[in-house]
């Protein structure tokens, strides 16, 4: 397979996974900011959303206030934000079009029509900051559906060869990165001292974190008790059965990298690094993580994941 084809296919997955994450993040945050002030400290909510989405640096170039309308418009619809949802869909489509022959007809038609719908939505809503909640919810549902269907079409129609492996690799790696970003922004809410502070304010913050990685229901199934911060951290970092946990994502990353290595008959730096990160997660306990510092742990993880992404690019995608 052409190195560029692998690169494109991998990025289609990453962009669509990112779009899905952003949609969930916006949803969860609008929910918390709709609560009466007594239930949630919301002044910083939208700033932390900007940080979690990585848009905090460019946002001030275009807006003065980080309020709901502005942040939502910037994250969801703004063409000037390189990783806005609309750009993610557009880039995903551009990447898919560049490798039109590597994706199946179903996948291509789906992403092409999603792009056409996006265009249509934009022509109906020319002013992003003026989009009402109802239209926004409709849009976010459409985004989540787009990602799920693309995944589903891939699952049902693709040959299980390197093309498929690179597509899956993109999803897993992007997911790991997104979960880590949420943890990085909200880690102070999960620190043990918050337990004593307690109260409803933090409860809603915790549930927001869970919602942003669609883990609220899962939480209850796994722990069968009310939301506790260390459980939230445990679920998002170490639970193998939770599909967006760091460990689960790395299980997938290793799996797909190994599949690629096996097909080509050669394993390299990318496989080695991925396995090392996975081993580290497997060997960790939530207690130790809190003892040695949650923030440091997540920071280190993000750095290592970036390093892995470069190794993958070097080994396969640049050719």
């Amino acid at each position, binding site marked *: 397979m052409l*190195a*560029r084809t692998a690169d494109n296919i991998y990025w289609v997955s990453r962009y669509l996974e990112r779009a899905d994450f952003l949609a969930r993040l916006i949803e969860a945050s609008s929910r918390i900011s709709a609560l009466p002030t007594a239930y949630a400290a919301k002044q910083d909510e939208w700033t932390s959303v900007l940080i979690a989405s990585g848009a905090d640096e460019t946002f001030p170039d275009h807006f003065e206030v980080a309020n709901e309308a502005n942040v939502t418009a910037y994250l969801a619809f703004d063409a000037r934000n390189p990783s806005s949802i609309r750009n993610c869909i557009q880039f995903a489509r551009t990447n898919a*079009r560049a*490798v*039109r022959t590597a994706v199946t007809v179903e996948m291509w038609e789906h992403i092409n029509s999603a792009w056409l719908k996006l265009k249509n939505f934009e022509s109906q809503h020319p002013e992003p900051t003026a989009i009402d909640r109802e239209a926004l919810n409709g849009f976010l549902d459409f985004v989540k559906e787009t990602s799920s269907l693309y995944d589903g079409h891939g699952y049902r129609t693709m040959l299980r060869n390197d093309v498929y492996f690179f597509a899956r690799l993109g999803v897993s790696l992007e997911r790991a990165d997104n979960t880590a970003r949420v943890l990085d922004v909200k880690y102070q809410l999960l620190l043990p001292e918050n337990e004593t502070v307690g109260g409803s304010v933090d409860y809603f913050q915790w549930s927001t974190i869970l919602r942003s990685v669609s883990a609220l229901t899962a939480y209850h199934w796994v722990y069968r008790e009310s939301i506790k911060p260390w459980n939230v951290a445990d679920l998002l970092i170490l639970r193998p059965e939770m599909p967006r946990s760091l460990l689960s994502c790395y299980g997938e990353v290793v799996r797909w990298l190994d599949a690629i290595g096996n097909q080509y008959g050669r394993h390299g730096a990318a496989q080695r690094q991925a396995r090392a990160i996975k081993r580290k997660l497997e060997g960790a306990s939530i207690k130790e993580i809190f003892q040695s510092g949650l923030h440091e742990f997540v920071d280190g993880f993000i750095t290592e994941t970036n390093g892995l992404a470069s190794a993958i690019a070097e080994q396969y995608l640049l*050719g």
Partner: protein
Amino acid sequence: MSQFFDEMTNGAAEPRALYRRIAEWLRSAPPELLDARREQAEILFRKIGITFAVYGDKEAAERLIPFDIIPRLLGRDEWTRLEAGLVQRVKALNMFLTDIYGRQEIIKAGLIPQDLIFRNECYRPEMQGRRAPHDIWTHIAGIDIVRIDDEDFYVLEDNCRTPSGVSYMLEDREMMMRLLPGLFAQHAVLPVDNYPDNLLASLRSAAPPHCPGDPCIVILTPGQFNSAYYEHSFLADKLGVELVEGRDLTVRDDIVYMRTTEGEKRVDVIYRRVDDDFLDPLVFRPDSVLGAAGLMGAYLAGNVTLANAPGAGLADDKAVYTYMPEIIRFYLGEDAKLKNVRTWRCREPDALKYVLEHLSELVVKEVNGSGGYGMLVGPHASKEQIETFRQKLLRDPDGFIAQPTLSLSTCPTSLPGGVAPRHVDLRPFVLCGADGVRIVPGGLTRVALKEGSLVVNSSQGGGTKDTWVLADNAK
């Protein structure tokens, strides 16, 4: 009574025998059916993403070429005549290119003025003294054909560089079989779907002579923002070959490789859809990123075949076109089977004088223009447009040729208001391999959707039709 040859009626009350079933169907089909099928076709085309980009049109960066659901018919006898003419013409084109970049006999014989060739931008000095592998320069040619009566075929233009449109020929056929299976079944239509196999076989046969085993073939595209990108990816898919961009290729010691996830892989044949100018920044435009540095070195060393060969564009130059009857006679000793449209070469003073006096009746074309840009259709032009062209002609007569406004034939076409005749042309695709010439029966019929318009180019609002070559004769 129309002054044009209508391919269905030929001006009579009763349709030509060939079109009998089509005429019946048009009489009996309710108008809503045609409308419904037309809309269905558009939805399907948009969904699979068959679009083309129009240069200089930001708003509609990706547009659909309108598809007309009424097929255009040719009888087997008509096709046989046309096919023989195409084979003859493409043979002559290849011999002409071999000669120009070789011994230049035709110039020595005084049949073509030297300056017409060597002052031409399409002549590539880099290719002088070189031979194309197997002496094939134009592996894929698109010859634009028009009819003005039920006898002769006229060549409007030869396309020897990177002719596009073949994906429409194939997709239009798919669409017809999907939308009007009954009508299709009533006719014995000769198939075109083996075109990709033919193309692959031709490219394979054109591999460098010493290439071992199964040659590695790729299609080189300028990328997804090119107007014909859909076609490039379509062909790569149908041929089962990689669609590469310049940045996927690397040349080391005169051998071309593509970068894959498993390292570098040697490439033997490149069906390139990138213009000469952009092929190699070391030889042609230094700022080009669409080709690969060193590609020409690899080509000249005989390690890779480029289809079509660099420099082949010389043969489809509109000024060279006017000499085609002489070119065919010179190399093949035969008369041209396909007619040339009468052409005035504005470089000749008498012709220029005539053209300037008859601008309002003639079609004036830029010698190096393509795609319907930079062209004057006298009878449809405003006074100002004519005046602008008069000035252009006076400034640079060598740059233009003129032709009579042809009475292009018409075919029934389904439009929002009903069925009406519209002007059409035909682009059959001729494949040249080391093992002979291949042509599938059919081609791309382009139709000018605007009433009275003679410009069929997609960039100028033209549409396409499926072309049915029937097993029955027209006469």
